[in-house]
Structure formats: C-alpha cells, structure tokens
C-alpha cells in the first residue's frame, strides 16, 4: 500500500502541467481611409517634349497646385510610342525629366499626372510628342583634328576644340567646350573606351557648346569623346575622362562603435571608435551615477573631443558609473548614443567576471510593462540600409550589408509617451561576451525612435538583444534576434586585427626559430640514421652546419 501511495503521487505530479487557466488570441482590425482633400492637384500644364539626341528626350512642365490640405507629392510620367499605348516610365518630384535609352528616329508621346501626399491623382495632362534624332555617323577613331581651316570661321583658322571643361555631379556632368569655328557638337560617354553608355548631340551650329549628361552613376569614372563637325563636314575629336562625385552622407549621424568602460585601479578607461563619416566632428561623453544617460545633456559631461580614448579619474571605488557617448556632426547633430558602465572593485573584493559586457544583461526581467510595449515584436522594428527597409527572415533574423551604415527604428506611435529607454545590444560574433549597446532616440519630427550605427565591419551572426525599459511601470520587455552581416573586402573602415604588430612579429620569430630547430634536428637524424651507433670520427673536420659525433 505504501508503494501504491507513492506511485499515485508520482503520477499526479507528472500530469500537473495539463492545468489550464485561460487561453487567448490576439488579432488586429485595420482599414484604410482616403480622399480627405477637397480636390486633387491641378493637372500639369505646358508639357513640352524636346529631343536632345538619338536616344534622349527631355520633358518640362509647369508645377501643379495642391487641391486641398495635402501638398504635391510628385508627378507620374507616361510614354507612348508613335501615339500608341501609354506606359508609366517614371515618378519624380521635379518638373523636368530626361527620358533616355530611346530608339533613334522614333516618335514618342508623353503625358504627366500630378499626385499629392494623400495619393490623389490629378488626371493626365495634354500629350506632347516629339521624335528622337537619327543615328549619327560613328565617331572617328582618330582623335587628331582634320581639315583645318575650312568650313567657316576666320580664314586660315585651324578648326579645333578648345577650353574643354567637365563639371561632374553625383549623377550628371556638364560638358562645355569651344570650337574655333561654328560647329555641331556631339559627345559620347561610357565606363569603357567603347563609349557604350550614350551619346548626346546638338544640331545647332555654334562656337560655345554646353551639354548635360544625365543618368550617370555616382563615384564612377567615365570615358568621354567630344566630336565637333563644321558646316563643311570636317570633324575634330577630343577624348577625356571624368569621375562623378560621391554624394555626401545623409541621414542620422552614426554612433561611435565599440564603446567600452574598463575599470582600472584608480580610474575607468573609456575606449571607442569614432564613426567613419565625413560629417564627424567630435564625441561627447556624459556620465551618470543612477542610470544610462538618455541624451547628450543627461548627466555630467566628462569629455568632448575627437580622440578615441579617455580616462575618467574622477571616480570613487565601489560606485557604478553609467556612461553614454554621442557622436557630433559638423552641423551640430548628435547620434543616438552608445552606452557602457563600469565599477572599480574594492581592494580584495572578489569580483565575479560577467558573462557579458551587455550593460542591460543583468537587469531583472519584469513583465509589468505598458500594453503597447508588451505587444512589441521584432517585426515592429525597421532595419534600413541605403534607404531600403531590409526584410526579416522568420521575424528574427535580418541580413545586413556589413560594409554600410545601418539604421534601426521603431515607429513613435508604437510605444507610449512615458519615460522609457529603448536599447539595442549587438554581440561580437567572434566573442559573444563582448557587446555593443546603443540607444534609440526620437527623431526631430517625432515619427521614429531610431539609431544609426556604422558598418559592422566583419561578416558573422551578431546576436541582437532589444531592451525596452518602462520606468513608469518598472518593467522590462526583451526581444531577441540576429543580424547576419556580410562585409565586403573593400571596406571604408579598418577592421581590428586580433594581434598587435608586436605580437605578430613575436609570432613570426617563434615560427622561424621552430623551423630552424626542425632543420637542425633533421640534419642530426639524417647523419645518424645510416649507422645505428655513433662512429668515432677523428680525422674529419667539423663544418659549421654539420654536427659530428666525437667519442
């Protein structure tokens, strides 16, 4: 009976998890509303299509006016060929457009439609049609001038191209030059000497020529051939090169990376890497004794400058210090902030090494958070590179380019307007105990909490932990995910090498010594192997590198 009793107890305990108190299902209801504007934008007027080459037509039109509370959002451009069909070819916010890549000697018709920021459309404008130029003769391969002194201009003047000036922008370049006599001009360009990217022609005879090349790629070197033909058909050619500009960095200022606070005997050593951003001016470090500073003005400023390390000597043993570092741009913008904390132990105190440098790792889990915070998932966060929102795989993993800045943001409306801290910690893929924590802050127009970090720098899986601290409810919400980074070799920032130069030299020296020892040992055994026992050698002269046995 005693055994029976024991068995009943065991079975009862094993089935305990079947108890269910309640079950829940959460879902959303959503709908769209449209058309609050009293009227759509006005129809664009005075559309004009002008051919500028055998493959390009330029469009201009008058700006539309808003029909209501919503401003003009842009224009849709439609194109038909030989008045047949209409296809949307582009959307632009400007009132000019260059349609390139067209067929020569072909008539194209265009219409334009305005839309506002509420996606209300004006209807299409009256069409405008024109025909591209015929294909010109191929450029002369020889760049040397020909037939000087004929076809106009002053008698005896050599017909040639002068005063060539190329003014490249990010995606376009202005080509200006003079000819010594009136001429038609034509330019060919491409990223190879075949000038494969396009050509532009002016059929007007003139001595000052100015052509605008569009649709170029930023930061790219182009081959340029300039051709001028005078009225007598004489053609001269000049070749050149130009490189388009790289656009200036835009978007939020990236945070300093690898911010660490290391307790020493009498100070706390702070180290970091400044963002490799052309707008970078300096960093500002603020310190608090209560919790991580929320912005660059929260706490005591302890350092401002462009260095990458600082020793905080004004510290008390046994006290925990919370630091936040902010990168400042040359126009006064501050990054969202990276954080670290440290405490100098009392002499003799047994310090348990932390399992992670994540300053939020030891915060107690407390589920009592605002309902809006409780509902947050990783899918609520946007991960943005080069203006594009990156897809999340399985709502937990985001593939990122490790060579580009990364912006992480959360819509302002998704969290309550209460005192809170939103922090993200990325773990080093090579050493998960090392981490890189940073804060998300509201942007200027209070539409997002966001942070931008510099390129991660190396490929690997960066474990990501998001902590949302709800100070009002004394709660903490945690989310976990991964950033799968692929870093390319042509990085703009240096990658930290695991050894210093001294260490590398020492390693090389050790390898050399070992190789030398191995060589000597092999020589010894090579000598010994044929004879099992050493043979006395009396008359042989020892050389420098062959050991001998002398008995």
């Amino acid at each position: 009976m005693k055994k029976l009793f024991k068995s009943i107890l065991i079975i009862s305990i094993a089935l305990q998890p079947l108890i269910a108190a309640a079950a829940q299902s959460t879902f959303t209801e959503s709908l769209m509303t449209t058309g609050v504007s009293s009227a759509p934008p006005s129809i664009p007027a005075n559309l004009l299509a002008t051919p500028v080459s055998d493959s390009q037509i330029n469009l201009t039109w008058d700006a539309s006016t808003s029909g209501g509370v919503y401003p003009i959002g842009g224009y849709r451009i439609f194109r038909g060929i030989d008045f047949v069909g209409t296809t949307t070819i582009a959307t632009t916010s400007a009132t000019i457009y260059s349609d390139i890549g067209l067929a020569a000697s072909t008539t194209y018709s265009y219409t334009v439609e305005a839309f506002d920021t509420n996606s209300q459309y004006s209807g299409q404008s009256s069409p405008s049609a024109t025909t591209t130029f015929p294909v010109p003769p191929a450029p002369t391969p020889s760049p040397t001038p020909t037939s000087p002194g004929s076809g106009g201009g002053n008698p005896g003047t050599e017909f040639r191209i002068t005063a060539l000036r190329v003014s490249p922008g990010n995606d376009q370049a202005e080509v200006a030059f003079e000819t010594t006599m009136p001429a038609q001009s034509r330019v060919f360009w491409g990223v190879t000497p075949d000038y494969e990217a396009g050509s532009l022609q002016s059929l007007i005879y003139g001595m000052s020529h100015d052509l605008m090349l569009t649709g170029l790629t930023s930061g790219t070197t182009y081959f340029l051939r300039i051709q001028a033909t005078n009225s007598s058909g004489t053609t001269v050619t000049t070749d050149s090169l130009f490189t388009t500009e790289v656009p200036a960095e835009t978007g939020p200022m990236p945070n300093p990376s690898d911010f660490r606070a290391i307790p020493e005997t009498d100070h706390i050593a702070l180290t970091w890497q400044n963002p490799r951003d052309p707008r970078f001016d300096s960093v500002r470090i603020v310190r608090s004794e209560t919790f991580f500073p929320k912005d660059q003005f929260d706490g005591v400023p302890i350092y401002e400058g462009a260095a990458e390390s600082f020793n905080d000597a004004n510290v008390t043993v046994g006290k925990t210090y919370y630091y936040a570092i902010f990168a400042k741009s040359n126009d006064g913008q501050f990054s969202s902030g990276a954080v670290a904390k440290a405490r100098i132990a009392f002499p003799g105190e047994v310090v348990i090494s932390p399992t992670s440098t994540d300053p939020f790792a030891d915060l107690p889990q407390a589920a009592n958070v605002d309902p809006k915070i409780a509902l947050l998932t990783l899918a609520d966060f946007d991960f943005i590179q080069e203006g594009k929102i990156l897809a999340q795989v399985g709502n937990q993993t985001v593939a990122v380019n490790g060579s580009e800045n990364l912006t992480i943001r959360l819509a302002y409306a998704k969290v309550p307007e209460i005192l809170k801290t939103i922090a993200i910690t990325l773990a080093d893929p090579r050493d998960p105990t090392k981490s890189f924590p940073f804060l998300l802050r509201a942007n200027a127009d209070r539409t997002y909490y966001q942070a931008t970090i510099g390129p991660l720098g190396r490929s690997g899986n960066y474990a990501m932990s998001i902590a949302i601290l709800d100070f009002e409810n004394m709660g903490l919400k945690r989310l976990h995910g991964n950033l799968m980074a692929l870093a390319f070799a042509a990085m703009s920032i240096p990658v930290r090498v695991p050894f210093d130069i001294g260490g590398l030299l020492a390693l090389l020296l050790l390898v050399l010594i070992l190789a030398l020892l191995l060589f000597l040992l092999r020589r010894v055994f090579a000598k010994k192997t044929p004879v099992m026992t050493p043979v006395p050698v009396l008359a042989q002269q020892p050389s420098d590198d062959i050991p001998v046995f002398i008995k």
Partner: protein
Amino acid sequence: MIWFLAVAAAFPSGVAIAAVMSSTNYKIQSDSLNFGGVRSNSSSYAIEDTLGEIATGISSSTNYIMNAGYQQMQVTYIAITSAANVVMSPAIGGVSGGTATGNTSFTVTTDDPAGYTGTIQASTSPALVNNASSTVSFADYLPGGANPDFTFTNAATASSLGFSPKGTDISSRYLDNGSNACGTGSSQTVGACWDGLSTSPKTFLSRTSGNQPSGTLTTLNFQAASGSNHIQLSGTYTATSTVTVIPL
C-alpha cells in the same frame, strides 16, 4: 512494470493503469490507478467518486505544487485557435464617408463540463487608431441602450467601430428577437447586435458544458463607418483586440 502487474492481479475488476488514451473519435483525459470508485449517472446528476486514496488534495510549498489523488486530477483543458487579423474593406472616403466591414473566426475547445466564458478587450481607447497619429481615431461604437444595437447606427458627423459576434456560444446579450432588439430572444440575425470595444474585458461568450473534441466556432464581425458630414483623416487605422476564454 512489475508493480503494475502485481496490482492488476490483486484487483482484476477495479484497477487500471493510469494513462492518457485517444483514438480518432475519443480521448480519455486521465484515468485512475485505483481499487475502488465509480462514475454514477441519473437523469439529474453525474458523480464520480473514488475509494482507497489517502493523503489526497493540493499541497504546495515555494518549490512545488502537488495534486494528490484522482479527483485532484480533474484538470481543465481549454484552447482557442488563433484568430486571423481583420482587414476591413472597402476603404472609406475621408470626405464622402462610408462603411467598411470584416470578420475573423476562432474555435474554443474545453473539456470543462461547466463550460467557459469569453471576453474581448481592446488595447487602446478608442480602439481604432490612425497608424500615423494616435490622436486620430474612430470612436468605439456606443449602443443606444444597455444592450447592443440591433442596427449599426453611425451619425453623419461621426465615425465609429463596432463588433457583432455570431456563433453557438455567444452570450444572450448578443442574441436578438429576429426583428428589432438584442438581449432578448434566441435569434442571430445577420448583421445585427452591434457593440463597442473597450479596454475593459467585455463578455460575449458563454457556454455551460464541455465541447471537446470538436470545439465551437465563433465569428466576430467588425464594422467601421464614417459619416457623410464627418472628415476622417486619410491613412491606415488599426485596432488590436484580445479574446480571452476562461473555463468555469
């Protein structure tokens, strides 16, 4: 195993080996290893008793909770299937006004012979809020009386979101008389009995018996409307609702 066989030999008519068993058309949630007791039925009662158990009951400390004894094993099972998100359509004209509708369904299953209740609760007040601006919203539907409105009514100068549950287990409050009133009768007229969401739980499901293994399907209909003299800011509006079911 030796012990089970020994007991089975000693009590061949009253002992079973404890297990959870099932086939395609039945499931025994928990049976008993025992030597007495019986399930008795009449037209007016059902009783299960046990014999031979000692030291039964619930006991606990900071480290464990123990349910000792067969009757203590009458744990309750309740489950709800995941309700799909609702995208109401068509889009409502912010100036001209209009109505958008949508619905979602779920199935509740319980082995609790006493049944269950279910509530719906919105995460915000009002529930349907513009994604871009939390201050722009549709009002929660407000019935004209204590019971839900038989007909969804939205003033020309207002916008609102209401819900109407349909299914075998909905509370009597959402049943209607088939013509013009809710909270009375036993009909479930299509498109009738509209109520508003709230951040407080609102009971809309009530059942007084178990329903496993098939469970009971409930459909939640949603309707949003903007009046013809009401300007509703364009954009996407979202409400988040949670249905909670609790065994009785």
